[in-house]
């Protein structure tokens, strides 16, 4: 009979974290420096990791353990947000950081990795548990999976899990091929597809809002909800990633994964339990209920856009085609807007408008749920006296929830005005929220896949997006069609206007 730790106190202690080693493929890359190591250090600072926790970084660049530690120290100091740096905590944490150089296509790398993991386990008591993290180029995912499978490193005395970053393929067929390769080394339950949007506090708070309260769920359906807008706007351009972005585009880069997942969280049916598979089953069901557009419906219900040059804040901003590494006639969508319908009893006929773009006026991600207006306008006045109720779930930059409703303007007469009731995460709770990567890394170590994407979800969202992408691929768009710094192409406004709606300006 295995012993249970008798000292746990769930009321006061953070979640239990088992011992493990984490292998980062692509340890010399930007993600490792900017996100992973700062998040791991922060977890160590918060005493969330086992004392023997180890990181084994792998990339092509030859380096010693100490050189890698020095590099990671510089990254942690540079990218640690809202947190103090403690030299003592780092010194202890750094003892568990190791490095090995190798080419992911080289079959000899993986038996060497196996031997190194065994040595680390012996020295640091990691229990044979290993979390592999693919922070490498997407083109290297399959060689890494094949190497792990061939050397049988995906199996061991403890648990083995693999975390992969998006993109999970570039269409449905490639997503299935990637999944098949991963499954040669790992069972589906051991594959953690990370979508950092799902690790954000407000996205998790959607679940709390919907399923922890009794007052919202009765309104959460076609009878009361007029439409839903999901916006992920970025004010920056492609920032040197022109060559990558040229092949991806906003539809694949944002809507297929982040925004589809957010939509699934907003629209899914209540889960019977908060167990990972139960929640993911409901998300998956919702994604499979999104109507796949027929080719002749695509251009009516979607808008592809690309930003052109502009003069913003006294500065000349290049258009997408003027960005380094981008072809002068690129047909890439730097803006995508789609109208989705969910074919189930709850949502039939309710439009879900999703939009994402680069070089929009501000960086903001939010969900706006617009409710139907009161059935009868009994108060005289202009359109503000019949303004519909809006529930705004803000994801970034300021996480929070706002409810807009009408109130009587003080004084004689019956004049109404819209007012906003705000709940702001940052100010309502003084505690620092963990970053999405802290949350998700801890979840993967603990084995909680609730906030991770499953293959059936990936395939369902690709099926919806592929139908749009195929038509877009066959269409020659007259790009650029929106100026940098604007809210996107006029065609996106027209798309909503056809149903009597307008985009919110966040």
């Amino acid at each position: 009979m295995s012993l249970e730790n008798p000292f746990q106190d769930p009321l006061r202690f953070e979640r239990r974290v088992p011992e493990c080693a984490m292998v980062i493929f692509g340890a010399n890359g930007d993600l490792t420096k900017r996100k992973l190591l700062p998040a791991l250090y922060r977890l160590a600072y918060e005493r969330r990791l086992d004392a023997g926790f180890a990181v084994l970084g792998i990339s092509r660049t030859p380096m010693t353990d100490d050189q890698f530690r020095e590099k990671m120290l510089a990254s942690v100091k540079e990218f640690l947000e809202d947190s103090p740096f403690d030299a003592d905590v780092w010194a202890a944490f750094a003892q568990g950081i190791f490095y090995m150089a190798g080419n992911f296509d080289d079959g000899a790398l993986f038996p060497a990795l196996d031997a190194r993991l065994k040595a680390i386990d012996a020295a640091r008591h990691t229990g044979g548990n290993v979390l592999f993290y693919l922070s490498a180029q997407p083109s290297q995912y399959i060689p890494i999976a094949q190497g792990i499978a061939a050397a049988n490193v995906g199996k061991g005395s403890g648990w083995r899990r693999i975390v992969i970053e998006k993109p999970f393929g570039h269409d449905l067929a490639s997503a299935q091929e990637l999944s098949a390769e991963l499954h040669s080394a790992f069972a589906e339950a051991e594959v953690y597809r990370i979508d950092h949007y799902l690790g954000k506090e407000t996205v998790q708070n959607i679940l709390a809002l919907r399923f922890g309260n009794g007052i919202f769920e009765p309104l959460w359906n076609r009878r009361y909800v007029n439409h839903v807008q999901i916006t992920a706007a970025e004010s920056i351009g492609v920032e040197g990633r022109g060559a990558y972005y040229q092949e991806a585009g906003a539809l694949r880069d944002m809507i297929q994964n982040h925004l589809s997942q957010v939509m699934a969280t907003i629209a899914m049916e209540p889960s019977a339990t908060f167990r990972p598979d139960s929640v993911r089953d409901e998300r998956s069901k919702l994604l499979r209920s999104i109507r796949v557009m027929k080719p002749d419906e695509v251009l009516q219900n979607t808008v592809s856009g690309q930003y052109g040059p502009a003069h913003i804040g006294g500065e000349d901003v290049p258009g997408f085609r003027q960005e380094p590494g981008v072809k002068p006639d690129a047909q890439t969508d730097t803006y995508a807007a789609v109208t989705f319908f969910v074919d189930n009893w709850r949502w039939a006929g309710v439009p879900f408008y999703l939009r994402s773009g680069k070089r929009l006026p501000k960086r903001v991600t939010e969900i706006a749920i617009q409710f139907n207006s009161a059935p009868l306008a009994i108060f005289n006045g202009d359109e503000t006296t019949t303004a519909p109720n809006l529930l705004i779930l803000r994801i970034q930059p300021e996480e929070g929830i706002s409810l807009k409703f009408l109130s009587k303007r003080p004084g004689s007469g019956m004049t109404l005005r819209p007012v906003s009731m705000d709940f702001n995460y940052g100010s309502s709770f003084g505690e620092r929220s963990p970053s999405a990567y802290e949350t998700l890394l801890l979840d993967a170590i603990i084995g909680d896949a609730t906030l991770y994407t499953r293959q059936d979800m990936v395939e369902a969202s690709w099926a919806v997006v592929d139908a749009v992408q195929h038509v877009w691929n066959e269409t020659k768009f007259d790009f650029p069609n929106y100026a940098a710094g604007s809210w996107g192409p006029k065609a996106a406004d027209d798309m909503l206007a056809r149903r009597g709606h307008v985009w919110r300006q966040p």
Partner: protein
Amino acid sequence: MGAAGGTIAPDRILHDMADLWVSLGKQGEGDAGVLRACSMTLVVAAEESDDAQAIGETLAALMPEHPSRAIVLRFRADAQRGLAARVFAQCWMPFGHRQQICCEQIEIAASDASLPDLAAVVLPLTVPDLPVILWCRSPRLFQLPDFSQLAAIAQKVVLDSAAFGEPAAALGEMSGAAAAGSLLADLSWTRLTRWRELIAQIFENRAQLANLPLVTDILISYRAAATPPTAYYLAAWLIDGLAKVGARPRVQFRSDGGEPAWRLSLVQLRAQGSADALASIALAEGSCAEVKTGGLVSKAPLPALTDYALMREELSIPGRDPAFERTLAAAAKLALS
């Protein structure tokens, strides 16, 4: 606001609070008004001599995370009955926002003799449908015969056994009150959370967990002249945990010398005949704990345990804390043995 004859009317206080909100609202411009936030009523019972500024600063620090209606009762040892009250607001402007967030604060000055009248004044001032927490900063007040009437308003009473003169008597008294049905919290127990969490984390590792039944000795050192309540709590909690895996360890308390502010300095779990401790957590320089286990050494920060930090944690647990209740009874027994 004081009333003739040293009495106060709750309705008048509530009216003053309503006026306060109107005047705060008028100070806002356009949409940037005032946001009222409240998640509980926090009643603070303190001596008149207690540092009013320190209490105010602690409440202000607590408000962003635990917005509450604060009722501060300041007692003077006086046989004359007399009450006086004033209301004001604690407001803050979240960084980068135009809107102020405000919480109400009521301050009531009372004599010991008016304690029996106080419950009837405080009860109508509590916020409906939200928990009421009473933070009693003075052991003397807790021991006054009529204090129980005030305590009955609250779901939970927060005390600090370290402020009581004699640890064994304090633990005995609190254990007795808890056994009689009072829901108590003790900041001396709260001070242990980080130490306990570090210990628990060590045994999340299966290799270390397998050694736990081998523990035969517990050593707890502290920087204080006499064994503080926190050391008794830690011992009782460790004994309880180890009993679950079949270990029956001996406990040794060791004083490392008195300091003006006592602290735990070391806790070790040892197996008989083993040269090294199975687990050891020692206070290190720079507000750090040095954790040694399985040949590995790591460091973890031990942030300063201010009143704010302790109350912040306690206010997060408005209901029962079974681990504390169990440990309080065992610690009292240990201290009195």
